[in-house]
């Protein structure tokens, strides 16, 4: 295997072209073409019926709510909604679909020609949406007999069809050139924006870790001025961080191959969370022979313009508008707001403010200390074991003078370690600012007698010298005093 280039080397020589295909499971009550329930985590094969099992004679009927949800997604992505559209059969033989085809859409998707704008490092990138279509999810296969539960080495597979037939929306971008060294960040920003848009519509819980939002990342490289290269498609990239890593890895891998004069194979690749690497999957030539044809069992759809306009009028506030509103409410500059968005902290800060914290405090914790902790742990901010309510409580304790910043950081240690809410942690660990004035005064007296020269300076009007005494008192109280209070006591005593 060729040695990888560094990412920096790679983007000096080559220009990446991105393409993203995203699958979103809708959270309808029932499946796409039958009345089976769609509860997550139900016992295997308890949410199946003759339609989703493809028993002879069963006839599918489309779920109105799923069609509406797809039109809403299309509208939110600035798409044109088809006036005439139909389903198609995508034929393939694989046990994850009992029908031996997946009901999907082919030449006539429900929505076409949209766009999304994302802001990365001060620059706006317009991502063109080629199509948004409606299809059905497949069953879940469990591979047994292999060492790791993967197909490789498995002796047999066990299939659960509960997921087969759950409505799935596929959103496909046009190729995205011109992102250069920011390709990983643009891919991530697009995925985050798409997730936020769909979440705002309330049509899916879009949880990447549960598989209700899944990404395939297409990537090719070319030298400046030359035609686009051959692309690879990395499947099932299931976190924002992984989207970024998958792009980065493919850029490094493909550039090394091209440098060595080798050619890129058009293929499907798998992403490995543990290593951040991709490896080849099944060969593309064989897999793409799906022999699509129009689905005769489902009626053609002609969404009326009245219906579409009614859905458009009912769209909620979209993330971009929401960000503008929150930025104003929180009094943040463009750069600061961009940091909030990049850290995926908009919702966290909003919830923290709703729980009673001031905006400045909420922003400070999530972008500062908590971002640092998430980075250290290699986690997303949303994955940290601290809730917006807990952060609001923490900030409240700081506002009340019960905690200073240093103590607050120790309280965070405790919350992240699962010791309870900030108030519990502070009580259990004895982390409260010393508010007993008697104890503070004694500590101040001690500091004054230990530093007579400094005390004289302060008496002489040099208040800045108080810092030395404050430091001594903080040391004596192990940081558990409020610096402002200590300063006031010192100045009162040395008038």
């Amino acid at each position, binding site marked *: 295997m060729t040695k990888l280039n560094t990412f920096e080397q790679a983007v000096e020589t080559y220009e990446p072209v991105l393409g993203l295909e995203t699958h979103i499971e809708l959270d*309808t*009550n*029932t499946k796409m073409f039958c*009345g*089976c*329930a769609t509860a997550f985590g139900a*016992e*295997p*094969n*308890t949410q*199946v*019926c*003759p339609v989703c*099992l493809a*028993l002879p004679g069963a006839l599918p*009927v*489309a*779920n*109105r*709510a*799923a*069609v509406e949800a797809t039109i809403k997604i299309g509208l939110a992505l600035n798409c044109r909604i088809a006036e005439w559209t*139909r389903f198609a059969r995508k*034929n*393939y*033989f*694989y*046990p994850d679909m009992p029908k031996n085809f997946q009901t999907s859409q082919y030449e006539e998707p429900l929505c076409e020609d949209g766009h999304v704008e994302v802001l990365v490092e001060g620059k706006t990138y317009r991502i063109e949406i080629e199509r948004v279509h409606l299809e059905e999810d497949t069953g879940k*296969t*469990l*591979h047994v*007999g292999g060492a790791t539960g*993967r*197909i*490789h080495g*498995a*002796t*047999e*597979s*066990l*299939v*659960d*069809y509960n997921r087969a037939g759950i409505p799935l929306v596929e959103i496909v971008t046009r190729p995205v050139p011109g992102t250069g060294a920011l390709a990983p960040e643009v891919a991530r920003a697009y995925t985050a924006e798409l997730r936020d848009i769909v979440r705002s519509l309330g049509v899916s819980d879009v949880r990447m870790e549960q598989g209700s939002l899944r990404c395939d990342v297409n990537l090719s490289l070319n030298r400046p001025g030359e035609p686009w290269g051959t692309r690879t498609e990395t499947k099932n990239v299931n976190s924002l961080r992984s989207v970024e890593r998958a792009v980065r890895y493919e850029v490094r891998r493909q550039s090394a191959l091209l440098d060595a004069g080798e050619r890129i194979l058009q293929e499907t690749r*798998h992403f490995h969370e543990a290593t951040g690497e991709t*490896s*080849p*999957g*099944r*060969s593309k030539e*064989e897999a793409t*022979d799906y*022999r699509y*044809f*129009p689905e*005769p069992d489902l*009626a*053609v*759809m*002609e*969404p009326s313009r009245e219906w579409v306009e009614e859905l458009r009028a009912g769209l909620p506030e979209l993330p971009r508008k929401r960000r503008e509103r929150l930025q104003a409410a929180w009094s943040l500059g463009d750069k600061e707001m961009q940091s909030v968005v990049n850290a995926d902290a908009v919702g966290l800060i909003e919830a923290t403010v709703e729980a009673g914290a001031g905006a400045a405090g909420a922003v400070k914790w999530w972008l500062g200390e908590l971002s640092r902790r998430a980075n250290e742990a290699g986690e997303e901010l949303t994955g940290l074991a601290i809730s917006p309510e807990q952060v609001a409580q923490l900030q409240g304790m700081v506002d009340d003078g019960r905690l200073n910043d240093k103590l607050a950081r120790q309280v965070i240690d405790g919350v992240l370690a699962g010791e309870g809410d900030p108030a519990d942690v502070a009580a259990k660990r004895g982390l409260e600012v010393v508010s007993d004035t008697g104890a503070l005064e004694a500590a101040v007296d001690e500091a004054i007698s230990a530093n007579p020269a400094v005390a004289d300076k302060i008496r002489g009007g040099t208040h800045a010298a108080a810092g030395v005494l404050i430091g001594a008192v903080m040391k004596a109280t192990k940081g558990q005093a409020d610096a402002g209070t200590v300063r006031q006591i010192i100045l009162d005593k040395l008038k």
Partner: protein
Amino acid sequence: MSTISREEVAHLARLARLEVTDDELDAFAGQLDVILESMKTLAEVNTDGVQPTSHAVPLVNVFREDRPQPSLPRDAVLAGGPDTAEDRFRVPRILDEEA
């Protein structure tokens, strides 16, 4: 000149996961050729200005409301498969073309 080649029949058999012997390939290629030749008769009809038909009935916008209906009892579901384990259908090792 035949309408469908032996190679195309082999390819289709592979896509359908069917194991076909050489003798069968020859036989099927011949039979499919007869069928396709017969279908060509349709191509003689003048279809200028006629939309391709994909649906036999002139219905549009047939939807169900999003209300759950009872699913099948699991025993009945699994009874339809040749082999089961752990409340799931058991199938032979899936194609080894995927890593």
